[in-house]
């Protein structure tokens, strides 16, 4: 019943927004340069360390600049996120930062904001490119390149193992874009090395416990494996436990590489158990607000802004662990 009323509310808000903003139909809404803005941040969910770090970065940076931030958490529901965006429109924010939960369902939210004359910047995930376009319907997309992350992980592994490895791949949640892209980037990277082979590839749902259980099983079925590639750090930490339970030494018998750059992963690198991890930065605050200021000043914004992600290995983990989340 609650959900139904939310949808109704969303529909009502969309209708209102339609009436208000029908004047600016085609082009991207403009933003006046001001000293301080009232901005909205529509978070998709806040149930994992990465999301929490992202929210904190947005809040801290807003506070630092003296901007007003309207924060909503869609708790994993696309319908609620659409309603959240509409309520931001009703509250008259200057701009909206949106981390779209899914590619298609969030299109109405982007369009409603556009009609209301409010510029939208997408964070970390994008919307369906055939239905909404950067520079026309929203300002830009800021985020990491998941394919590139997978490629860097693959290249590091190729270099470290001398192009010779039997790899167990722990994939992310089946069908999610980071899982698909990280698998693709990694496969591209190891293609050049005929003696590198993925012997087993299964989903560990981006979770530590699931990653551990899957790794335990796969290590048992493939005792000749020499490396593990995990799509995120949580699964990599689980895999370390699995390797130890199997009586092998992580970092020596089995080389492990992953993606994210969490504090736990950096600690594991310092302990010599994890080989390396590619950063997927959750610290969006500074770049997001800088982009908005540039946009207000009339600068041209590229349709995609890719975060500069660092690479953590034994050479810098010790030094950078204090910054990790």
């Amino acid at each position: 019943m609650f959900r139904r009323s939310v949808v109704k509310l969303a529909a009502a808000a969309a209708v209102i927004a339609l009436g208000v903003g029908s004047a600016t139909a085609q082009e991207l809404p403009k933003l006046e340069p001001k000293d301080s803005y009232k901005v909205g941040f529509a978070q998709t969910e806040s149930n994992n360390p990465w999301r929490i770090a992202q929210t904190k970065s947005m809040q801290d940076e807003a506070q630092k600049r003296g901007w007003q931030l309207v924060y909503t958490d869609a708790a994993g529901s696309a319908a609620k996120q659409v309603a959240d965006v509409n309520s931001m429109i009703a509250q008259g924010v200057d701009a909206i930062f949106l981390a779209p939960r899914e590619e298609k369902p969030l299109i109405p939210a982007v369009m409603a904001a556009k009609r209301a004359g409010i510029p939208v910047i997408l964070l970390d995930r994008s919307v369906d490119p055939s239905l909404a376009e950067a520079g026309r319907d929203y300002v830009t997309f800021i985020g990491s390149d998941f394919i590139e992350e997978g490629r860097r992980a693959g290249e590091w592994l190729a270099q470290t193992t001398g192009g010779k490895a039997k790899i167990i791949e722990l994939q992310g949640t089946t069908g999610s874009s980071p899982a698909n892209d990280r698998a693709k980037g990694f496969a591209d990277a190891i293609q050049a090395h005929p003696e590198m082979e993925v012997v087993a590839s299964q989903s560990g749902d981006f979770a530590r416990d699931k990653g551990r259980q899957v790794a335990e099983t796969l290590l048992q079925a493939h005792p000749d494996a020499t490396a593990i590639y995990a799509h995120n750090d949580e699964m990599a930490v689980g895999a370390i436990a699995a390797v130890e339970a199997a009586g092998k030494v992580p970092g020596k018998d089995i080389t492990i590489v992953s993606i994210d750059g969490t504090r736990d992963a950096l600690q594991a690198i310092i302990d010599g158990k994890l080989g390396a991890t590619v950063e997927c930065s959750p610290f969006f605050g500074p770049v997001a607000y800088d982009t908005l200021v540039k946009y207000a000043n009339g600068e041209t914004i590229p349709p995609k802004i890719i975060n500069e992600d660092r690479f953590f290995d034994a050479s810098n983990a010790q030094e950078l662990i204090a910054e990790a989340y």
Partner: protein
Amino acid sequence: MADASIARPAAPARTSDGLGQLLARHGALVGLVLLVLFNLAFTPNFVSWQTLNVNLTQVAAIVIVAVGMTLVIATGGIDLSVGSLMAISGALAPLILLGQILPMPHPLLAVALAFVLPVLVAGAFGWFNGFLITRYRIQPIVATLVLFIAGRGIAQVVTNGNLQVFRNPEFQVIGLGRLFGIPVQVILMLILVAGAAWMLRRTLFGRQILAVGGNEQAARLAGIPVASVKRRVYLISGLCAGLAGLVVIAINSASDANLIGLGMELDAIAAVAVGGTLLAGGRASITGTLLGALIIQLVRYTLLANGVPDSAALVAKAGLIVLAVWLQQGRKST
């Protein structure tokens, strides 16, 4: 593949009484044996102590929860909240260990409290389930749905949804330790199974549970304190879930309130159903539940080890439940 081969010999159950009886009574055991045979033939490196070790440590948490679930189902109820109660206990223990709730004068005291308090809290929530069911006569599936939803929320609130990481060898004995080479959680699991099986068969409380599940009205007329029996089984289910929550976080040396025990209620109910306990109540088999959990675990292992994606494992699990219920139907008619 394995369940198809169980199904085939089961087909003549209605014509030949002897085989049907045998399968209905020992269906779970037959299924497990067939699965093991399949693995011996097809799964690489199946014959090793490490395989046994991996499967037993992975199944322990499911069995611990499923023992409590068996008792609940034996009274004709169901407990959907076990996964969320695991999350609550798993979220509380690190808070106590790290001294975030109250400062600990002695590390060993912290460990002791981290073992006891979360389990008691989970037990209290379990008792609350029973209270809702008996006092307000809410159907168990609805009453436990309350904590299924709210419990995970509570766990997220106390931890702010943050992943809690800890390292405490004394506490982690429950997930990583070994006694005579046997993992501690496997020993715990066996003790619980033996204890519950004995209780169900030999004690007054055990007979009362079955009587309540068999015919509640008759049990009440016979003077059995129905409400008290029910509250106690939900309390036990809560305690079991709390213990399982500790096992899971101890293995991972981390606690993520969003994920601990996610979907556990379904695994546990599936184990109970496959094990031959009547979902309507009145008849229960703890050893059957153990076998049911082992089957579910081994199916998952088999599919993973042979490179079949996880999504297919879910379908196979569902197929097993259908098969188990079908076997139960067969048993009722004979």
